Each structure stands twice: as C-alpha cells, then as structure tokens.
C-alpha cells in the first residue's frame, strides 16, 4: 500500500470484501446472536470430533489464504515480512467486522498466530521472519507450543527434553505433554535443554517439524470428553540449526515471550460477540428458563454482567494505555486470571438458572450445551500458567516483592 487509507475507508473496503465472499450472520446486530437460532454450542476448547475437524481445517486454511492474498492476513505486520504496515486499530476493526459474517475464524489458530508468530517476530532472524511469518499468517503452516513436560509444568525451567548438536543440525529426544493442537500442527515451538548446568541458561528454542521422523503425537482425552491436547514423543528427531530461534542457551527468554503473549491472548479472548459471555445469550437463557422476573436471578445476572463488563473495560483501557505508550507488561496476565474467574462465575450462574436441565439433556436449545463451559472452566485456570504461578510472577516483576515461597 502506498498511502495509508483512513480507518473509515479501510473498514468500508473490508466490509465490502467480506460481504462479497461470506454470508452474513443470521442476525447482524452487534452481538450476532439470536436465541434459538443456529447452533447452541458454547464450547470453550477446540475439540470438535475428528471427522468435523478434518473438514474444518482445510476451510480454515483457505480462509487464511484468502485473507493473505487480499492484504488482510496480517494487517498490522511490517511490510518487509509481508504485513500490511497499518496501525493495530485497523487490525481490531477488521476483527470486529468479521464477527458479522459466517467466516471460519481463527480460534483454532490462537497459538499459531497469537503466540508463536509474535515470538518469531521478536526473536527470529530476518531470514526466519521472512520465511515463517507469511507461512503462519497465510495458514500454510500451523504451529503448536511444545513447552510442558511430565516433570516440568509450573516449573518450566525443569524441561528435560535434550537437544544435542551434530554438525549443522540438532537431535532432540524427550517427551512433551498437554500440547494443544499438536495433532493439527505442522510445526512446534519447542524448548529443549542444550547443556547441563544452571537451569535458565541452558535452554534453547527451536521450530520442530511435527511430521519429521521420530515425532509421535498421541491424543489425550480432556475431562470435557474431547481431545484438544496431546502428548508428544520425540525420538532422536533432527532439527536443522536454521530452525533455532534465538541464541543457543537463550531459550528461556524466548519461552517467556511466548508465555507473555499466551497470557495476554487468553486475557483478551473475550468470548464476546455471540460467544459464551454474550449479554444477549445470557438474557435469552434467563428468559427461556422463565426466570426473568425472579429477583434473585436478576441480581445474580447483574452481578455476572458487571464482572464481564469490568473485565472488558479493563482490557480496553489497558490496550489504550499500551497504545499510548503507557506501561503494558506482565500485569496483562491479570486479565487471564479475570477470564478464568469469569468462566467459573458464568458456569455457576448458568447452573442456577437451568437447574437439572443443565445436568440431564432435556433436548431444549441452549440448555445441556452449557455443560461445555462447566467442564471447560477448570482448564482455563491451568493452561497458560496457573493462577498461583501468574501471581508469583506479578509479585516479583510488577510489585518488586521477593521471590515468593
């Protein structure tokens, strides 16, 4: 783009582009939600059944490719790496717009685009950025995050997977666990131990080809019943040195970048629009249950709404401050804690409204479906760092308190 379009021009063009290609949502009001219409699914994890998933993935890739080909794939990215070079506000405006259309969406790509891509953007070499970022943003490649191990969860620096150099490549052996989306991914950002000695100084980050010989992905069934995460075995897997991200021994900093993005990505996933936190959906739920005149339910409803809005206002104000150059930072992880708190509150509220219709399927639209939220909520407190670990980090890094023990 030679001259930058105004935000209005951009939005108008983008709306036209979307309208030509994708059908509008059944209700194109702000929330895009209408009680009783369409699917009543309120899943909080990407865990469709394997058949559905096999169908969905090519559509997601096609969607990304379309976006990429028309300059919407990485609106705020640097031009040198194939991005649009526009301000972040344009990206947000585009995302808002997409909610009004039936598009495959990016929710399966949170790790790929929200975490791994920005990590490469920060720590990768120019060559790596130019090679990987267009591939990730165009959906040609999908990435997963290979950090946790059986012996290294909260204590990530305890990773034991070993990478040993041999000439121009590395050989990796070890086991990773809880790897979301490993079964869909083409590459994985992996943290390995590359030398003995002080824990934080001997880790190195790589991009491993998930289809390389020696990589075995086994689904792990979650308590929700689906299998969104996996265990990944690596047996003498070869990784070319050109796929090392950052210096040898600098893997901890790379991992911290990814985790920082994970926490703020999770914290800013609002599940808004037509999602589980939609005010319209919750009003529909209360009305359908015939409880809109119940003063206690009305109080509980308003309490929940106030918590959801509080989280939204906080995200919006923090985003505005960050844009204005006023202190962002590790405190963004507080938004992730707020999100998992709100998911638990939501589950509790829904249970009180639905009663037994939550726990036994009576066939009603928008009733038993909520079990996904009830069952998914505990996972949100764990993934991306548990509440305890996030608070430890914030205590040290934001408040300057001694290392908590």
């Amino acid at each position, binding site marked *: 783009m030679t001259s930058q379009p105004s935000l209005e021009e951009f939005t108008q063009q983008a709306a036209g582009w979307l309208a030509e290609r994708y059908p509008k949502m059944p209700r194109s009001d702000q929330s895009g939600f209408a009680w009783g219409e369409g699917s009543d699914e309120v899943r909080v994890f990407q865990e469709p059944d394997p058949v559905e998933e096999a169908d969905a993935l090519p559509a997601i890739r096609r969607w990304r490719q379309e976006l990429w080909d028309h300059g919407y794939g990485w609106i705020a990215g640097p031009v040198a790496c194939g991005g649009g070079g526009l301000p972040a506000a344009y990206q947000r405006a585009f995302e808002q717009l997409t909610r009004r259309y039936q598009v495959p969406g990016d929710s399966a790509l949170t790790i790929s685009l929200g975490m791994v891509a920005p990590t490469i953007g920060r720590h990768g070499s120019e060559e790596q950025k130019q090679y990987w970022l267009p591939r990730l943003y165009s959906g040609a490649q999908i990435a997963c995050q290979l950090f946790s191990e059986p012996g290294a969860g909260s204590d990530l620096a305890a990773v034991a997977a070993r990478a040993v150099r041999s000439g121009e490549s590395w050989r990796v052996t070890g086991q990773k666990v809880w790897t979301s989306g490993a079964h869909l991914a083409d590459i994985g950002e992996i943290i390995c131990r590359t030398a003995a000695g002080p824990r934080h100084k001997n880790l190195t980050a790589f991009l491993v080809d998930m289809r390389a010989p020696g990589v075995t992905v086994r689904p792990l069934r979650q308590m929700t019943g689906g299998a969104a995460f996996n265990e990944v075995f690596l047996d003498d897997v070869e990784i070319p040195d050109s796929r090392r991200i950052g210096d040898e021994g600098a893997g901890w900093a790379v991992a911290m970048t990814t985790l920082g993005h994970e926490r703020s990505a999770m914290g800013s996933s609002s599940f808004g629009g037509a999602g589980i936190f939609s005010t319209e959906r919750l009003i529909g739920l209360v009305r359908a249950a015939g409880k809109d005149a119940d003063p206690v339910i009305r109080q509980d409803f*308003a309490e929940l709404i106030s918590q959801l*809005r509080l989280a939204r206002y906080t995200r*919006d104000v923090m985003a505005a401050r960050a844009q204005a150059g006023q202190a962002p930072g590790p405190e963004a992880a507080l938004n992730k804690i707020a999100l998992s708190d709100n998911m638990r509150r939501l589950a509790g509220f829904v249970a009180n409204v639905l009663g037994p219709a939550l726990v036994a399927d009576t066939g009603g639209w928008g009733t038993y479906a909520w079990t996904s939220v009830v069952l998914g909520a505990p996972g949100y407190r764990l993934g991306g760092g548990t509440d305890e670990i996030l608070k430890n980090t914030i205590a040290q890094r934001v*408040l300057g*308190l001694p290392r908590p023990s």
Partner: protein
Amino acid sequence: MATDGLALTSDERDLQSALRAMLAGELSSAGLRAALETDAGYRPELWSALASDLGLAGLAVPEEFGGLGLGPAEAAVVLEDLGRVLYPGPFLATWLATTALLATGDAAAHQRWLPRIAEGTIAGCVAVADKAGSWGQAADAVRARHDERGWRLDGARWFVIAGHVADVILVPAVTDSGLSVFLVERGADGFSAEPVSVLDLTRKVAIVNLDGAPATLLGREGGGQAAVEAAEHALLLACAAEAAGGIGWCLDACVDYAKTRTQFGRPIGGFQAVAHACVDMLAHHQSSSAAARYAAVATARGAPDALLAARVAALRTGEAYRTVTEAAIHLLGGIGFTWEHDAHLYYRRAWSSQQLTATPQAHRAAIAELVRL
C-alpha cells in the same frame, strides 16, 4: 463505545501532575487528622488553593462563567487523586451541585451562581437522599409551595455530603407539576444543616431540614428529573474514581510494608500468601481504575452505554474498595488495627462511600434494567 481515547490525554496528565504537586505534603496523616478535628472538617487554605489557584471549584463551570469548562473525564482524574489522599474538602459536593445546576438549563441561575462557584468563594451541595438513602422521590419527598413571596420548601433530606458547609444547596422537591429542582441559600430562614456523627471521618454529612425555607426554582417547574439524574450519574462516577484512588493507596502502603517488615528472618512479602494478597490488590486497582476511567469517558462522550458503565463501575469498585481495605488492615498486622495508622480511614471511606452511593442490590437491579433483562 469506541475504545480510543481511554488513555489519559496530555491535558489530563498535566492536570493530574498539577494536582499532585499541590497535594504533596499537604495531606500528611498529621495534617489530615488536624483538619478532621475542625468543625468544617477540612483546611480552608488548602481548599482555597485547590478551588481558586488550580481552578477545581469551577472544574465543570463553562469558561464563559470563569470556570475550566471540563467534563466528567477530567473530573474523574481529579477525584481519583483526591480519593487517594482522602481529601475531606467540598470538591465532590460542589462538582455534584454544578453538574445539577448545569443540567437545569436555567440561564439566570447560571449567570448568578456559576461565576461565584468558579471563583471558589462559595461551595455547593446536592440534598437528594431520603431517610432510607434513596434518590427516588418517595412519600417523604420535600414539598414545594408557592406563596406571595415566592417558593417555600418543607421537609428533610439526609446524608447530605458537605451540607454543613455548602453555601448553595440544590434540593429536588415535589410541586403540583411534579419533581422540580430548587436552590436554597445557606442562612435562609427555616433552613438548617446539622452535621451528624459519621463512620467516615474524612467525609462529613448533614441532615438538611427545610421548614418553609425560601427557595429559587431552577429551570421549569416539574422539569427536575434531568438534573437529579445528572447528579446521580456524576455520583456514580465519583464513587468509582475515589475508590480507585483509595485502592491505589492501600496497594502502595501494603507493598511497601511487605518489603520492609520482616518475620521468620525475611520480608513478609516473600511469603506466598502475602505476595498473592498484594497481587489481588493490584488486580483490584487495575480494574477499578480502568472501570472508573471507562465510565467517565463514556459519559463525557454521551455513549449509549454510559449509564450502564457508571453503574458497573460503582458496583464493582464499591465492592473492591471494601475488600481491599479489609485485606490491607490484615496485611499490616496489629499496626493496621491502630487508630494511628491511616488504614482505618480508608476502610471507613470504603464502607461509607458504598452506602452513600447506592447499595449493591440497587446497582444490580439498575444494571438488569439497563441491559433490558
């Protein structure tokens, strides 16, 4: 609401630094406590510096009347810092009165009172709550009647912030045409404002009695609803901004203490339970400050969600302020429970402010209505 403009503008940052510079050292614990012992409950010198030198008395007064002509977003910036130091003077009351006076649209009253408010020579207040604390006009509403010498008010209003010092008192009262807003001058026959004992030592409230007190009708008879709503909306914003400031004070006091107080041979901030309590305060500070800001900016812009945002902010910050002040006293140990430590002044403010604004139940009922459940 569109989300740009939520960060502080450079003018707002300038206002904030000027205010902080003026407050620095003025409200030390000893200074604050000495002021609290006086009848007024604040130091007139500091109020006059804030009111006139900084222009805060006329913050919302349009420039044509000598004020700063600033809106709710800037007011919230000021209130957050005043809340942080528990400033006991009549800024809030005067701002609420100005907001209501402007909303009456009464040009003559604007001419007469706004320049004096802006000069800082008179303080204002609004007297709206009934004995149950409700701002709705129930059976015991103040009555207004018109006789040959003009309007007269009869009745009582409760929990009137700064009622004991205000020079002009805005009172909603019922006439044959419905709710109307009147202005009563301090010293009018039949007017009295009795300060009562209060939990919050830094915020005096009075009971206002009106016994045939002469009053001026503001705006149209029966047209008082808009001014009452404007004042109530402003009170919600103020309650949130002040809470955010007070929570900020608690956070800093506790983090400092957690770094310096040692037990078991190390700073207590190294114990996870203490560290996490501090992080919880940080979370409350971040969200309260954001909610106060969001609501104030939404109001300034006349956004459709402005009242909802103000309700949400008042509800959530009200609850957070109580939680945080209670946690702060606990974290400070025995010293936190002493009269000498300022923590209890914040604890008192938190409980008082919440009830003087509205109960959480009232906020929730309003929120359910506003989103049209």
